[in-house]
């Protein structure tokens, strides 16, 4: 029996009159890489934001690591937030801090480690995500797109989270960089055993690293499961994704 890390039930989200989610339910298991797939505007990013308490659905229930995040006390929320790391689409590194300070800030604020040992951890994390050592002293404005992603991954992993949330991790990267980043996440997951939840529309990521995923369409989840399971389902959204030109090219290879 696998441990369920995230459990969303009957989520309804509305922005004004615009219905985004109509009773959406999904479960994510421990240590798997779970993908949220869907076209633009299908509400996959909103779903992610609801898991990390940036957005509140109109109704439904969300359990993350056994905590009901819609009815959570401030102290519990504080504890929960230290157990996850989030990588935003554009990196969202603090522009006034260096890369090293960005990675170390959570350790500095939430633990009572000495400055020297935080430095040791930060150096190790910089190395872990494959950044060169000189990157530590640079400011986010001085980094390339790929380095920004790696630096914010290091920041997300600074506190050794149980869950890593990724919002379109490979967007804006070239195919080689995207592939490397996918492999980095896969390798770190195998090594450290965290759960990964990623919003993506990069088919290569779905093919290569995602264990299970769901496809959003028509305000609902139209399919959920492994790639083999999902691809057998006949639904216009899934056909659009996997049987369009881009999807079928990958399939031939």
């Amino acid at each position, binding site marked *: 029996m696998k441990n369920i890390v995230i459990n969303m039930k009957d989520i309804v989200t509305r922005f004004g009159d615009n219905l985004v989610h109509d009773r959406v339910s999904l479960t994510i298991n421990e240590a798997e890489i779970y993908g949220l797939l869907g076209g633009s505007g299908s509400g996959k990013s909103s779903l992610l934001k609801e898991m990390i308490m940036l957005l509140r659905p109109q109704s439904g229930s969300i359990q993350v690591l056994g905590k009901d995040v819609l009815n959570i006390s401030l102290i519990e929320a504080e504890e929960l937030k230290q157990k996850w790391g989030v990588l935003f689409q554009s990196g969202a590194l603090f522009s006034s801090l260096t890369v090293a300070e960005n990675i170390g800030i959570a350790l500095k604020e939430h633990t009572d480690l*000495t400055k020297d040992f935080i430095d040791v951890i930060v*150096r190790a*994390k910089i190395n872990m995500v494959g950044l060169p050592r000189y990157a530590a002293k640079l400011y*986010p*404005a001085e980094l390339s797109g790929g380095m920004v992603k790696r630096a914010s991954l290091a920041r997300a992993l600074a506190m*050794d989270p149980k869950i890593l949330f990724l919002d379109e991790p490979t967007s804006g990267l070239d195919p080689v960089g995207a592939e490397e980043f996918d492999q980095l996440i896969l390798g770190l997951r195998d*090594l*450290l055993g965290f759960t990964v939840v990623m919003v993506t529309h990069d088919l290569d990521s779905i093919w290569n690293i995602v264990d299970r995923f769901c496809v959003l369409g028509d305000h609902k989840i139209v399919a959920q499961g492994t790639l083999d399971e999902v691809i057998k389902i006949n639904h216009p959204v899934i056909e659009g994704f996997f049987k369009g030109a881009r999807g079928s090219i990958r399939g031939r290879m």
Partner: protein
Amino acid sequence: MRNNANKSVVIVEKEDNTSLLRCNGAWTLKNITEITSVLQSIFQTTDKKSNINFDISAVDEFDSAGIILLLHTVKIFKVNSNNVNISGVSNSQEKMLAMFRGEEESADTSITKRYFFLNILKTVGKNTVSVLRDIVQFIAFLGESIASLGHYILHPSSIRFKAIIKNIEEAGVRALPIVAVTSFLIGVVIAYQSAVQLEKFGANLFIVDMIAISVTRELAPLITAIVVAGRSGSSYTAQIGVMKITEEIDAMKTMSFDPFRFLVLPRIIALMIAMPLMIFFADIFGICGGMFIAEIKLNLSYAEFINRLQNVLETKHLWVGIIKAPFFAFLIATVGCFRGFQVSYSTESIGRYTTISVVNAIFLVIACDAVFSVFLTELGI
């Protein structure tokens, strides 16, 4: 021997020259501080050059912080010429150790931390270089501005009249209310202070000389320049800085719109045209402020004041004030634009460079005024 109720610690078994450290419990970020203090006390009680053997087979849970701590401790023991071994490593732990080992062993310890004096020298050196670089860049900026001014003169049709007019309105016309109020108040302040002194000597009438000359020669130009530096200098930096962050400047360059011709020169020219007019405007209001107080405090009627004003206020005083205006305007506008171009790709730097730009502009205006003051007085004007 040590033990702890929490279990997340190390048990030491000593045997001759060898210490066996049995690690157990959860080596995770949550317990790191506790483990660190335990390890520290072990370190202090262990002899140099002894053998240390870490047995980690009983550790329930490792996260990256735990592994990093383990490797860090090993390194510290090694520095103390201990012979260190790690045993009981499982397959997955071996992988984690391999991931972090390379970094931990090659990590350099920076020397600069320890030498306070060297740090001061380093800071002084860095700042000196950055100031020199700023000066060189500013000269380059001036050069480019003048080169594109040459382009304007050779191709008068390329002058951006519309932009110039718009900038005159923005920096000049819209600033008139605040310039009027400030200089009126300065006139009031000067008149008030001097009225008290002059009354003692019965030299009431000389208040006119005092106000007319101090306002036209020095006060109105300075006050106007400071208001303009705060108002327009800062907005030039912020406007150009934002355009740089949003890559509009790069877009202009690729479309062969020279930013100097399109952004910098219109601003400099507009301010150089507007500033003398604004100073004349400020002169009027400054003198009005003085006249108002002279009537209230010294019973000097408006007619007497104006009559006296015509006798004492030679036009040269007015010109001395106004001749400075284009120089002030040039300094404010070039510094404002220059700092705008220095903004790098972060939101924070806009704020920083805007502040620097205003401070620089006001300093340069006052320095320039001092030069004029000495120069013109020596010339006897």
